[in-house]
């Protein structure tokens, strides 16, 4: 018969610090790098460890070599100035007629400095460039204000950025003073106000029961007309600015206009489409599904091409849509369809209990969506949303297909300049353009990670 096992603890076991391989810098080094290389307890394990060592050294070598190569090309061996305005000769080797040593192969930055204004703003007239600077500056300040946690009145600035800023930018960039006559604007505004008044009277019951039920429509119509025509009116004011048509915009300016419009429009549109697709009402659900599947089914190039070339064929004679506007609408609808699916993924991930908890308290559909479901759903899919934004930003280069001059298009036309023809001409300007794209896209990516960390901390999930 075995004695029954018995144990009673009399004093606590000591709380010890962990071994070096667990915590601290040595712990990090061990777990992430050396652990996989130090296992020699069997021939198989030894083989694996040797393979890991070899592979790690190979990777380190390749990484250092490539990074050094890039830095050498871009900085160490590059030519930065062209004091004698030799243009292309400043970047030629001795054999070609210049002054650089044989075998030189690095960036020719004077080429980029010369083409910079063109790459950033296109053929925008010099005298009016200050307007572009002002709108970019206002945009940067507004964006920073809305994005940084600690700024006061973030929401108010956000609303201003979505309403006043596009209007101000449009006037600054195009010059305002559009052809619209103030007379016609005035008449439309009066019509709109009349509709609003009719709506109010119908609401109060003065005009019979049929109009009472329809009073909402009057109000919506009336306000839309008033607001649209107020905008038309403001745009028609003569601010004494030189008019610059959208055909004269180019480079980074176009890229930013198309990308920002697409990004800002795609999120709310995408949310509405996603909610519509998941709706219980078959008509809405089917319409939204058709919309999403159509715009996802055709390439963006096709959309731009059709909008630019085929749309004028379908419009009545004399109605002329601005080329840039056509591209903008195509990009907005296209990216809204993509965003809708990303948001729908997030909505599906929300537990049914959240919907029930909200409904049981008497929240309406829109209150439930706005306060409970969408905040959680959107947080879940921040990686997907930012992914779509970054993809959209880079897809804007496709507008060159329809004759709109974006950053990449400006770069390509710069390469065609024979006065700067050198072997490194193309590489240099593509490096520059690639760098600009990288700054914007990486910036968005970093901000999204900052948002994710902030949100996960507050929910401690």
């Amino acid at each position, binding site marked *: 018969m075995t004695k029954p096992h018995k144990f009673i603890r009399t004093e606590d076991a000591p709380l010890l610090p962990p071994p070096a391989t667990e915590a601290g810098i040595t712990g990090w080094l061990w777990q992430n790098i050396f652990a996989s290389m130090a296992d020699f307890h069997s021939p198989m394990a030894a083989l694996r460890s040797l393979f890991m060592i070899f592979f790690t050294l190979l990777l380190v070598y390749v990484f250092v070599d490539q990074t050094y190569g890039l830095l050498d090309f871009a900085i160490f061996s590059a030519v930065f100035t062209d004091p004698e305005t030799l243009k292309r000769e400043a970047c030629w080797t001795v054999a070609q007629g210049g002054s650089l040593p044989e075998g030189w192969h690095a960036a020719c930055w004077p080429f980029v400095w010369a083409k910079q204004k063109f790459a950033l703003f296109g053929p925008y007239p010099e005298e009016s460039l200050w307007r572009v600077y002002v709108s970019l500056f206002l945009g940067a300040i507004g964006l920073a204000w809305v994005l940084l946690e600690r700024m006061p009145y973030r929401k108010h600035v956000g609303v201003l950025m979505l309403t006043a800023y596009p209007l101000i930018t449009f006037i600054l960039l195009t010059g305002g003073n559009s052809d619209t006559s103030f007379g016609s604007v005035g008449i439309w505004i009066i019509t709109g106000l009349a509709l609003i008044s009719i709506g109010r009277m119908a609401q109060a019951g003065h005009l019979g029961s049929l109009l009472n039920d329809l009073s909402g429509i009057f109000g919506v119509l009336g306000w839309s007309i008033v607001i649209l025509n107020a905008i038309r009116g403001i745009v028609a004011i003569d601010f004494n600015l030189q008019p610059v048509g959208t055909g004269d915009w180019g480079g980074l300016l176009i890229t930013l206009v198309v990308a920002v419009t697409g990004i800002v429009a795609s999120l709310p549109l995408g949310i509405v489409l996603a909610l519509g697709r998941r709706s219980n009402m078959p008509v809405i659900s089917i319409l939204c599904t058709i919309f999403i599947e159509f715009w996802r089914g055709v390439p963006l190039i096709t959309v731009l091409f059709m909008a630019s070339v085929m749309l004028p064929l379908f419009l009545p004679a004399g109605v002329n849509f601005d080329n840039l506007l056509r591209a903008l609408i195509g990009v907005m609808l296209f990216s809204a369809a993509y965003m809708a699916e990303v948001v729908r993924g997030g909505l599906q991930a929300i537990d049914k*209990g959240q919907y029930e908890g909200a*409904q049981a*308290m008497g929240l309406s559909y829109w*209150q439930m969506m706005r306060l409970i479901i969408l905040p959680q759903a959107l947080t879940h899919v921040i990686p997907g949303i930012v992914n779509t934004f970054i993809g959209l930003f880079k897809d804007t280069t496709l507008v060159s297909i329809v004759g709109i001059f974006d950053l990449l298009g400006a770069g390509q036309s710069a390469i065609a300049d024979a006065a700067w023809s050198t072997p490194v001409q193309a590489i240099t300007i593509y490096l520059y353009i690639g760098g600009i794209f990288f700054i914007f896209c990486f910036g968005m990516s970093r901000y999204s990670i900052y948002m994710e960390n902030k949100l996960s901390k*507050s929910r401690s999930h």
Partner: protein
Amino acid sequence: MASNSENGTAAASKMQVTDDVMISMEKVNKWYGNFHVLRDINLTVNKGERIVICGPSGSGKSTLIRCLNRLEEHQAGTITVQGITLNNDLKNIDEIRREVGMVFQHFNLFPHLTILENCTLAPIWVRRMPKAEAEEIAMQYLERVKIPEQAHKYPGQLSGGQQQRVAIARSLCMEPQLMLFDEPTSALDPEMIKEVLDTMVSLAEDGMSMICVTHEMGFARKVANRVIFMDEGQIIEEKEPEEFFNNPENERTQLFLSQILDH
């Protein structure tokens, strides 16, 4: 837990029941596709009454109480809550949901809001209360469920028992006339069940009408005016607790009680 307080509570609870009919379910039937999940349900609940519904899983108990605040739709029969008929009219549904609070098995707290925000959400957005007033009321009820110090934490930082008490406080902040409990302690660790049941008992002692789906028979004995046994979508037996536990008449009730009262 002396029998003194038990009898005292039961006696006091009987005194608070009024003759006002709060809920009336007549010939209610519900189907999920081909499956007849609620059969011929007839039930009347007066103001101040505490009803406990028990039964095997799949018997339709949760479905029954979820029909009361339109989280589920019934296809036949009439349900009236506080005189308001429950049908597809959104206005009626919203009115009913304001007066009926619900506590779920899995708490259903909103993880992206603090405890205080969870509790003030409905009063602010449904009852249109100003924020300061809503926060005062929320703190009162959080004290009532004995966790006022957690007001600024997030649900993920609380234990299960604390979360369920927050869920109870959240429903109470709307000051409902009736509370529905759908297996409130089934998802909790044993050591946390007591704190939630104590909260529910104190609610009952204050006169709150409640319908509770639960397996906690001790709670039923202590607090219920009526215990209802359901099986396969029907109400099998409906009696006062003493009678129900000591003298079950239907075979199925006897079988069920023998299974759950053993352990």
